[in-house]
C-alpha cells in the first residue's frame, strides 16, 4: 500500500526546546496506524505538529503534497480530520452546530446531509441529542461527537488523540468498534494515539513506539505485539 | 544589600538636586517643579497598584480630585491651615478607593479598569452638582489663600510651596519604597505573580488587593491636595477624564513597576503637553496616544525599566570578578 502521510526528520516543540527530536514515520493509505508511548513521550505533540498547531520543522507529505508550512485550517482543508485531546467540543453550541462546524469547509450540501445521516447511523445517540447543548453531553457522547465532527470534514486521514481517555471500558469498546467500521466502510486512514497499547494494537495494522521524542520501535501491529520492550512496558505481560 | 544602599544613595542625590533647585529657580520654574513633584506622587500611587499588584486604574484622576477638593473645601470654607488638610485628603481618597476597589477587585484586572473608568467620567459631574455647590463652589470652583513660609523663614511663597511639596513628596516615596519592601510588599508581589499560589499560602487576595488600592488612592489623593495648595484654585473641569488618562500615560512612560520611574512620569506629564500644545490643540492627544501605543509595543517597562537595566549592566561592568 502506498503511504498517505509521510514524516521525515520531524522536530517539534512548544517553546525553544524540541519535544520531538527528528522522527520518521508513514501512515499507509486505508490503514490504521497506532502511535504508542508513555505519558510525555510526544504522542500528542506528533499529532499537533502534523496539523500545524505548534512550531515544527522537517518534512511532512500528505498524498504527495508538502504540508509542513501550511496553516492548520489549510491542512484540514486538504483532508485531515483531527480529534484533539480533550475532544475540542464547542461546549456552548448545540450538537447540531458542532456537526455543522465539522462540515464548514464543504460546499456540497447534499453530500453533507448524506454524511450527517451516516454519522447518525454510527452514533445514534447524537441524533437523540441533536438540539442539545454539547456541554450537557456525557464524556462518551462528547467523544462520539468529536469523531463525527472530524469525519464530516470528509478526511482522508483521521487523527485521534487518546479516544479512550477518561471513558468507561464499555464505552471505549463501543467507540473502538465504530472506529473499525469507519476505517472499513469510509476507507478513512487512521492515525491513533493511545496509552492503552493493547486496545490500539487490536485496531491497528501498523504501530510505532515513541520514547522521549524518538521512535524506538516500529513495525506491523503483530510484530510490535511480540516486541519485548512493548510487551513488558506497555502491555504488561 | 549593595543594591538597596546604592538605590538609597541615588535617591538622596536626586533629592538633593531637587532641593538645590529651590534656590536657583525663578517663580515660573518653581511652579513647574512643584507640579512635577505633584504628578510624580500621583503616578507613584499607580505604580504601587499596577506594578506591585497587577491591577489597572483608569480613574486615578478621581482620587486626585477628591484629595484636591478635600484640601480646597477645608481651606476655603473652614479656614484650616493648608498642612492640616493633608491627613484628611489622604483619608478621604483612601476611603473612596477602598469602597470602589472592594467590589471590583474580587474579579479580574479588567473589572477595576472598567469601574475606575466610570468613576473618572462621573466625578466631574458630581463636583458640578448644584446641591453640593455650597461646599464645592459648583462650576465656579473654589479659590484659596496662598501658603506662607512659616517661622519668618527668608523664603518666597513659591519657594516654600515647592519645598513643602518636595518634603511631603519625598515622604510619600519613602513610604511606598518601605511598603513594597516589607512583608506586605512581598505579599503584594506574590499576588501579582501567582495569585492562586499566594492565596494557598494564606495571603488574603481580596484583602491585599483592596488595601493596596486604598494606598494607591491615598498617594494620588495626597498629590491632589498638594496641587490644590500650589495652584490655590480648584474647578470641576480640571479633573476630567483626560486627567486620569494623563496619569495613566505618565505611569506607562515612567515604567509600571518602577518607583524612581514615577519621577520621569511626573516630568513627562508636566512638560510634554506644554511642548505639544504649542503645535496644535489636538496635538497632545495624538502625541499621548502615539506614545502610549509606542511604549506598549517597544518599551513596555518604561523609562524606569530602561534605567534599571542600564544600572545592572553598569554594576556588572564595575565588578567583573563576581
Amino acid at each position, binding site marked *: 500500500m502506498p503511504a498517505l502521510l509521510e514524516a521525515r526528520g520531524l522536530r517539534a516543540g512548544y517553546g525553544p526546546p524540541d519535544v520531538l527530536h527528528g522522527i520518521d514515520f508513514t501512515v499507509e493509505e486505508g490503514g490504521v496506524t497506532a502511535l504508542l508511548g508513555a505519558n510525555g513521550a510526544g504522542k500528542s505533540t506528533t499529532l499537533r505538529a502534523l496539523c500545524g*498547531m505548534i512550531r515544527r520543522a522537517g518534512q511532512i507529505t500528505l498524498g504527495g503534497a508538502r504540508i509542513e508550512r501550511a*496553516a*492548520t*485550517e489549510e491542512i*484540514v*482543508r486538504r483532508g485531515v480530520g*483531527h480529534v*484533539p485531546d480533550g475532544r*475540542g467540543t*464547542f*461546549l*456552548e*453550541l448545540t450538537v447540531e*452546530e458542532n456537526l*455543522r*462546524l465539522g462540515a*464548514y*469547509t464543504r460546499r456540497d450540501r447534499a453530500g453533507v446531509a448524506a454524511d450527517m445521516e451516516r454519522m447518525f447511523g454510527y452514533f445514534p445517540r447524537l441524533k437523540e441529542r441533536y438540539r442539545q447543548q454539547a456541554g450537557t453531553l456525557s464524556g462518551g457522547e462528547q467523544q462520539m461527537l468529536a469523531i463525527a465532527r*472530524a469525519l464530516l*470534514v470528509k478526511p482522508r486521514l483521521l487523527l485521534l488523540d487518546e479516544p479512550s481517555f477518561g471513558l468507561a471500558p464499555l464505552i471505549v469498546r463501543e467507540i473502538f468498534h465504530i472506529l473499525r467500521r469507519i476505517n472499513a466502510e469510509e476507507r478513512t486512514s487512521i492515525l491513533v494515539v493511545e496509552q492503552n497499547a493493547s486496545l490500539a494494537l487490536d485496531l491497528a495494522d501498523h504501530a510505532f513506539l515513541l520514547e522521549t521524542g524518538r521512535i524506538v520501535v516500529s513495525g506491523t501491529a503483530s510484530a510490535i505485539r511480540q516486541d519485548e520492550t512493548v510487551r513488558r512496558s506497555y502491555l504488561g505481560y | 544589600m549593595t543594591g538597596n544602599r546604592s538605590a538609597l544613595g541615588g535617591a538622596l542625590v536626586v533629592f538633593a538636586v531637587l532641593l538645590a533647585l529651590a534656590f536657583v529657580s525663578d517663580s515660573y520654574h518653581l511652579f513647574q517643579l512643584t507640579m512635577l513633584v505633584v504628578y510624580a506622587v500621583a503616578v507613584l500611587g499607580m505604580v504601587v497598584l*499596577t506594578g506591585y499588584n497587577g491591577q*489597572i486604574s*483608569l480613574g486615578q484622576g478621581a482620587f486626585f480630585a477628591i484629595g484636591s477638593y478635600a484640601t480646597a473645601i477645608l481651606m476655603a470654607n473652614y479656614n484650616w491651615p493648608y498642612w492640616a488638610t493633608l491627613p484628611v485628603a489622604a483619608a478621604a481618597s483612601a476611603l473612596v478607593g477602598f469602597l470602589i476597589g472592594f*467590589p471590583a477587585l*474580587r*474579579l*479580574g*484586572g*479588567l*473589572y477595576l*479598569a*472598567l*469601574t475606575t*473608568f*466610570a*468613576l473618572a*467620567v*462621573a466625578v466631574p*459631574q458630581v463636583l*458640578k*452638582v*448644584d446641591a453640593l455647590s455650597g461646599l464645592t463652589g459648583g462650576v465656579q470652583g473654589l479659590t484659596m489663600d496662598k501658603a506662607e513660609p512659616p517661622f519668618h523663614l527668608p523664603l518666597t511663597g513659591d519657594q516654600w510651596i515647592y519645598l513643602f511639596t518636595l518634603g511631603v513628596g519625598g515622604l510619600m516615596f519613602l513610604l511606598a519604597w518601605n511598603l513594597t519592601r516589607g512583608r506586605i510588599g512581598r505579599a503584594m508581589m506574590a499576588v501579582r505573580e501567582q*495569585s*492562586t499560589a499566594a492565596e494557598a499560602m494564606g495571603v488574603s487576595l481580596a484583602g491585599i488587593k483592596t488595601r493596596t488600592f486604598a494606598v494607591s488612592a491615598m498617594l494620588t489623593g495626597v498629590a491632589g491636595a498638594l496641587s490644590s495648595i500650589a495652584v490655590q484654585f480648584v474647578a470641576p473641569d480640571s479633573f476630567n477624564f483626560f486627567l486620569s*488618562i494623563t496619569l495613566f500615560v505618565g505611569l*506607562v512612560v515612567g515604567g*509600571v513597576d518602577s518607583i524612581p520611574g514615577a519621577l520621569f512620569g511626573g516630568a513627562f506629564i508636566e512638560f510634554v503637553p506644554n511642548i505639544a500644545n504649542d503645535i496644535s*490643540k*489636538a*496635538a*497632545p*492627544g*495624538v502625541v499621548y*496616544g*502615539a506614545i*502610549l*501605543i509606542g*511604549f*506598549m*509595543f517597544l518599551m513596555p517597562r518604561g523609562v524606569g525599566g530602561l534605567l534599571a537595566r542600564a544600572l545592572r549592566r553598569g554594576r556588572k561592568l564595575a565588578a567583573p570578578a563576581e
Partner: protein
Amino acid sequence: MIGLLHQISSGIASGAIYASVSLALVMIYQATHHVNFAQGEMATLSTFVALTLIHAGVPFWGAFVITVVLSFGLGVAVERVLMRPVMNAPVLTSVGVFIGLLLIINALDGWIFGFTIKSFPSPFHSAHPLLGGLVSPHELGETGLTVVVLTLVWLFFRFTPLGLAMRAAAHNPSSARLCGINVSRMLGLGWGLAAAIGAAAGIMVAPVVFLDPNMMSGILLYAFAGALLGGIDSPLGAVIGGFVVGVLENIFGAYIVGTELKLTVALIIIVAVLLVKPAGLLGRAVQVRV
C-alpha cells in the same frame, strides 16, 4: 403617569443605542478577552464621516450605508494592525493600546472636523405627534432601526454558516481551526462588525446629543454598564442590559438624582452589579484561569 411613560419610552430609545454599543463591546470581549476602550471614539469618527458625506450632498441613507461599510473596514484594520500583536499580551498592554487609540482618534476628530458642537440631521420626520405625543419621530425611527440592526446581527450569528464559524472561533479557537476555520479572519470580521454596529449607533444618536469629538464618551460608559449588567460574555445579555440601563438612566435622572448626575447612574449600576451579581444577568460565573 404620562411623565413616567414618557421617561420609559425615551429610556428605551437611548437604551437601543447603549444596547448596540454594549453588543459591540461584548462581541470583541468574547472573542479576545480584551475590552475595546476605543469603541466609542471609533463610532464618533464614523459619525463625522457620515456628516461630511451628508454635507457633500449624499442623501442620508446613502451616507449611512457608505459610513457603515467604511467603518467595517476601519474595524478590520484596527484588528489587523493594533490588536493582533497584543493578542496574548497582558491586560495592561491591551488597555494601554486601546486608550492610546482612543486618544488619537479623539484628537484627530477635533483636528480634522473641529471641536465645535455640530447638529446632525435626522431622517425621521412626521408632522403629527406619535403615540399621543409620547415619543418623537426620531426616537421611534431610531429605536426601530436599531432593533432591525440588532435582529439582523442575531439572524446572522444564529443562522448563517459564517456566523456560526465566528461564534466557534470566539468560543474555542483551536478547535475552530481544526474545523478548517480561518480564526484570524473571523476575528477581523468580528472587529469589522462591531465597528459597523457602533457606526450605526453613532449616526442614530447624533441628532439627539449633537456631534462633537467627545460625543460617545458618556454613551460608552452606559454601554459598559449595560454589558456588565447583562453579563460581559453574553451578547443577548448585553442587548438587554443596554435597554435596562437606558430606562434606569432616564428614570433615575428624572426622579431621583437629577439630570446633572445621570453619568453617576452608570457608575452606580457598575458597582452594584459587581457587588451583587458579578456575572451579570445572563453571563456565566466569572472564572479565574490558573
